């Protein structure tokens, strides 16, 4: 009895966002988002600019008031709480460090608002400075720091109050690419060592894939798909996700055969059928899309057996990436199909790599395409 109660309590989501809507005049920025976050999760909201992810984050921080819906954090309804009353802190995009305060004063700012005794503030600030390895810079002003150092101060400031929820708005967006990759793992390590629950907003899929335990894909104010990075990459549930996460080739057409062990799609752009080795639940003749990742496409110089999941084309473009190349193969319909080919593919077969204008044959296995209905 007691155990059962405990069980259900621990299963209850730590943060629960229920049917949140935000309208600015006639435009709907966030359109009915429902999302549950578990304790200590690092969740990434991923989407292109203007998709509503930042508005959602600002509603969590309390800087925007939702038009409708409810936000519950650790059993407390915080929907109408002012930002300064929420146990939530945010790391702002481009950091918003107070320019007239030293690094230490920036970190202490939130603690001073809580009327914490001075001794405790000093101890906490020192702890935070150590956490982000910025102790040497305690007395510097923000303008005397590099971008990466500013990012670490911003992180320390947002963690200083030990918030129940940490919000990160494009946490590494202001850093250059090289530094960003290095900082991603550093940031995840810090967040995990502190054990804080995080929601980050980013438009960079690589950042989301590297850092987050789960990702939510947003577009036009709606949450399209939520899942682990692998789930989202391997099983996108819509065209937007398939194209947004990684690269893909999309073919559309009506379902012509739908049996428990196979589906066949008549893809006009391919000039043939796409055959998938599992059934779908939908009416025959329904318009669907098949997503085929470039790394699942095989390129051959010799003709392959004619049939489904294969086509003939010519090399229109080759992008060389060292260990692999991406071939842009122009099909008979004019559609360009991208295929990722490992560099040793040709050496092993003792073949000359195809070059611009060469005729090639593309094909893929029946278990590779993902069928998308929207």
């Amino acid at each position: 009895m007691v155990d059962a109660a405990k069980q259900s309590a621990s299963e209850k989501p730590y943060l629960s966002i229920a049917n949140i809507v935000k309208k600015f005049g006639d435009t709907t920025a966030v359109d009915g988002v429902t999302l549950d976050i578990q304790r200590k999760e690092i969740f990434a909201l991923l989407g292109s600019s203007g998709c509503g992810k930042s508005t959602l984050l600002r509603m969590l921080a309390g800087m925007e008031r939702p038009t409708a819906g409810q936000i519950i954090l650790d059993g407390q309804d915080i929907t109408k709480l002012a930002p300064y009353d929420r146990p939530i802190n945010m790391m702002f995009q481009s950091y918003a460090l107070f320019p007239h305060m030293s690094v230490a004063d920036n970190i202490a700012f939130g603690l001073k608002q809580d009327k914490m005794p001075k001794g405790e503030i000093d101890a906490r600030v020192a702890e935070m400075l150590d956490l982000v390895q910025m102790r040497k810079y305690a007395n510097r002003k923000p303008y005397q720091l590099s971008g990466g150092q500013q990012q670490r101060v911003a992180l320390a400031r947002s963690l200083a109050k030990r918030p129940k929820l940490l919000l990160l708005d494009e946490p590494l967006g202001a850093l250059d690419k090289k530094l960003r990759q290095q900082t991603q793992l550093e940031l995840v390590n810090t967040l995990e060592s502190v054990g804080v629950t995080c929601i980050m907003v980013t438009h960079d899929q690589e950042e989301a894939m590297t850092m987050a335990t789960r990702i939510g894909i947003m577009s036009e104010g709606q949450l399209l798909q939520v899942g682990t990075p692998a789930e989202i990459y391997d099983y996108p549930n819509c065209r937007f996700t398939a194209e947004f996460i990684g690269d893909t080739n999309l073919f559309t057409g009506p379902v012509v055969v739908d049996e428990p062990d196979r589906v066949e799609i008549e893809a006009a752009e391919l000039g043939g059928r796409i055959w998938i080795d599992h059934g779908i639940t939908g009416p025959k003749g329904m318009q669907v899309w098949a997503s085929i990742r470039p790394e699942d496409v095989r390129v051959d110089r010799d003709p392959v057996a004619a049939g489904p999941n294969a086509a003939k084309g010519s090399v229109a473009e080759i992008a060389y990436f060292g260990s692999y190349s991406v071939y842009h193969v122009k099909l008979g319909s004019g559609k360009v199909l991208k295929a990722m080919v490992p560099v040793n593919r040709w050496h092993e077969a003792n073949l000359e790599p195809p070059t611009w204008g060469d005729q090639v044959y593309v094909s893929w296995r029946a278990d590779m395409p993902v069928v998308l209905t929207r």
Partner: protein
Amino acid sequence: MNIQRLFKRLKPGRGAVISVPYFWLLLFFLVPFFIVLKISFAEQDLAIPPFTSLMNLEEGGLLHLTLNLGNFDFILSDDFYAKTYLSSLQTALFTTLMCLLLGYPIAYAIARTDPARRNVLLMLVMLPFWTSFLLRVYAWMGLLNENGLINSFLLAIGVINEPLMLFHNDFSLYLVMVYAYLPFMILPLFSHLVKMDGRLLEAASDLGAGPIKAFFTITLPLSKNGIIAGSMMVFIPAVGEFVIPELVGGPDTLMIGKVLWNEFFDNNNWPMAAAVATVMVLLLIVPIAFLHRFETRQLEGKGND
């Protein structure tokens, strides 16, 4: 100093461009000041111009330089001048404080409105400049007079039985001083407040500071340079203000501008007037140097915004 290093690095062509304002300042500020300084060391004389020359070439090629320190000695010994300087500084200080208290909320409100309305509001702040300064002071005289618009109106509707003493006292002096100098406070304050990053206030709020706390810990310190610039723009000209104390001030209002006028036009004592002016300039150099140091720091990027 970095500014000098910057100057050296600039190409000669750029130096020529920059030298234009320097030349302007030299010609119209520094040279006249030295002329005034020269006159202050002369003696009053019944001649045209009405003062003695400092240098005389005597027989045998002897150049005689006469420096009369009597004027400065008189200013220092007669406490009338000390009182006047003090009273001028006090009036200017009080005017500055009132302009700040009134101007800050106005500048803040303008900086916070949406850009479309902002321009209209700024226009309203600057609108009085379209009319001559003197006319505006005369308009106030018409309003505040014993038989002025305000008293006539209040008498007519029966709120008062006899005219209020609104005119020729400290009330009218400060009212018109603040009215005249308020735009000089609002504009620099506005230009600082409008640049302020709104996300800093959001960050303060996020970290637990309520609106009032956020204002005093973030907005106010970050607008420090605006406050200093605005205060200097009001304080410095207010110290030497002559027209307003003369036209609307009380009979016992002591202002250095008035004393200067008296020495110059009533007593025809140019050297004394020049000495009074020189002391005033020296008194003002302190705040001006302070302002200059601040501006330089801002130029070097060490300012707070």
